[in-house]
């Protein structure tokens, strides 16, 4: 083979390789960006005062929750399911509010669902790591299970010592199963990797929803839920906490 032949061959190989690499690039990067709100205001820890549906003022000192089992639904039935993805979204940690999923197949997705909390298997599997590390303070040792959502704050309406509010909601089994699946329509949300596009979905979490619909929480009567008592009542409220931010 002469010199030209070699160059031709190399060129053909390069073209084929490029074509193949394009062909295999059928998965993209998907980001879910969480923004925590109180009603229409952005959540600011400690310094801002808000009002619940009953007009009782309150401040927020801690707000964090687990997101897991993310599932993107596609009208063709080619759903994307994120297995072993457990994320702790913490208002205090900016990075934690961004969930990055690589390798999501290109498609138009019509809805997203996820568990607010941790599925029962991972509540029973023993010592976990990463977001599920019990050292993260979202774990009950004496009655094994993850705390799915922690809200702490203050309200003059609260009769607790120091007017505190403490809502630690969790539990995967009776008497309080607080695992709730949130499903949101996302109007044919496209993920395309071919042009190296990063697809970002903005989700809003509204703290106010914790304390209203279906049950309005009166801080003078309920200022803390820290075990199974009343936990499902708050869980039925927090299922309404998320919306897609346009």
């Amino acid at each position, binding site marked *: 083979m002469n010199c030209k032949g070699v160059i031709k061959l190399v060129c053909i190989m390069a073209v084929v390789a490029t074509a193949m690499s394009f062909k295999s690039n059928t998965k993209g990067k998907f980001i879910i960006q969480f923004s925590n709100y109180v009603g229409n205001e952005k959540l600011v820890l400690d310094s801002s005062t808000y009002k619940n549906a009953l007009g009782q003022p309150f401040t927020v000192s801690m707000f964090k929750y687990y997101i897991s089992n993310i599932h993107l639904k596609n009208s063709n039935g080619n759903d994307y399911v994120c297995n072993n993805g457990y994320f702790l979204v913490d208002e205090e940690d900016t990075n934690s509010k961004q969930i990055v999923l690589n390798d999501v197949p290109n498609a138009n997705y019509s809805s997203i669902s996820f568990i607010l909390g941790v599925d029962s298997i991972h509540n029973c599997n023993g*010592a976990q790591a990463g977001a599920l590390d019990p050292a993260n303070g979202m*774990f009950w040792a004496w009655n094994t299970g993850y705390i799915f959502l922690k809200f702490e704050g203050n309200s003059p309406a609260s009769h607790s010592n120091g007017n505190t509010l403490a809502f630690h909601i969790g539990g995967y089994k009776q008497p309080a199963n607080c695992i709730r699946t949130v499903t949101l329509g996302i109007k044919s949300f496209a993920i395309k990797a071919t042009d190296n596009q990063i697809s970002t979905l903005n989700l809003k979490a509204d703290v106010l929803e914790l304390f209203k619909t279906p049950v309005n929480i009166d801080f003078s009567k309920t200022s803390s839920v820290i075990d199974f008592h009343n936990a499902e009542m708050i869980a039925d409220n927090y299922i309404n906490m998320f919306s897609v931010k346009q």
Partner: protein
Amino acid sequence: MNYRAIYIILLLFAFVTLLYSFTSENGYFTITPKDVELKIPKGFPKPVYDFKQNKITPQGFVLGRKLFYDPILSKDSSISCASCHQRFAAFAHIDHPISHGINGLFGKRNVPALQNLIWDNSFMWDGGVNNLEVQPINPITNPVEMNETLGHVIYKLQRNTEYADMFKQAFGTDKITSQQLLKALTQFIGLMVSDNSRFDKYLRHEDTLSQAEFHGFQVFKSHCANCHAGQLFTDNSYRNTGLKPDTALKDSGRAAITGLTDDYMKFKVPGLRNVAITYPYMHDGRFRNLKQVINHYSGGKLYGNYDQSINKDRGLSETDKADIIAFLNTLTDETFLHDRRFQDPNIYAVSSK
């Protein structure tokens, strides 16, 4: 000094060094791969805990042992797991109805023995803990036991070069995690298997029971084995045994976990291996000896919504009672109690000082 004297001194020195090498870390406390093989005793069911998710290695086991005996797990380095789980008592706490933790504070329950844990499907007297790996978080973080946080334990272990090295040997990473801490502890406590009591030998036709022991076994089978069932001597259920509720401790038992009023004062049926040496008894340690326990079941006043199966155990003869105790004594497992693998690794270092 002549050459002969120097020669004798050198020889003596070599001899002492040789002796030391046999009895130190390299000898008595050495753990080989064979030492950490899990053998399922004949007649035992399939374990609940699966070591496939936590492969036992000599390094992991030795690390778990060091942690078990080290008060570094407590906030002020005063309490180790072994403070309340004594090896000679099958890792229960002899003579302590309720154990004291940090600053002399008291909890509200009797320390259980640690043995055959991988066959347990739940832990604690109320069964609130669902996996052996996460059980140690309770004593570590309980304000009246070790009063520590997992995060701070990891911090202390990470800055300790010996631990940093041992974790690396066991798990291959530089960064210590709580998962590694808990898995190492599980390797150590999970291998605590008691299967060689005289009763086990009797079942294997290697030993015989005396007439009293045999009669006690028969009475036990008809009166106690309904709950203390099988070779592990528990059906893993929760029962109200008619004990008078303690107004100071206010322990509601299983109800604290399930929220069911029916579960008030129900506690987990404990296995009975090594029972003769794990006194005192019951969830709050109210009975000093086995005789008191049997008298409670056989004729004691029963309170509350107690388990009706106790009714058939009323009115045992004094011979029956004495023979049940004779039988229970055959459950003491000297092999387990003297198993060198579970010995405090610091003891040699301490006694040689």
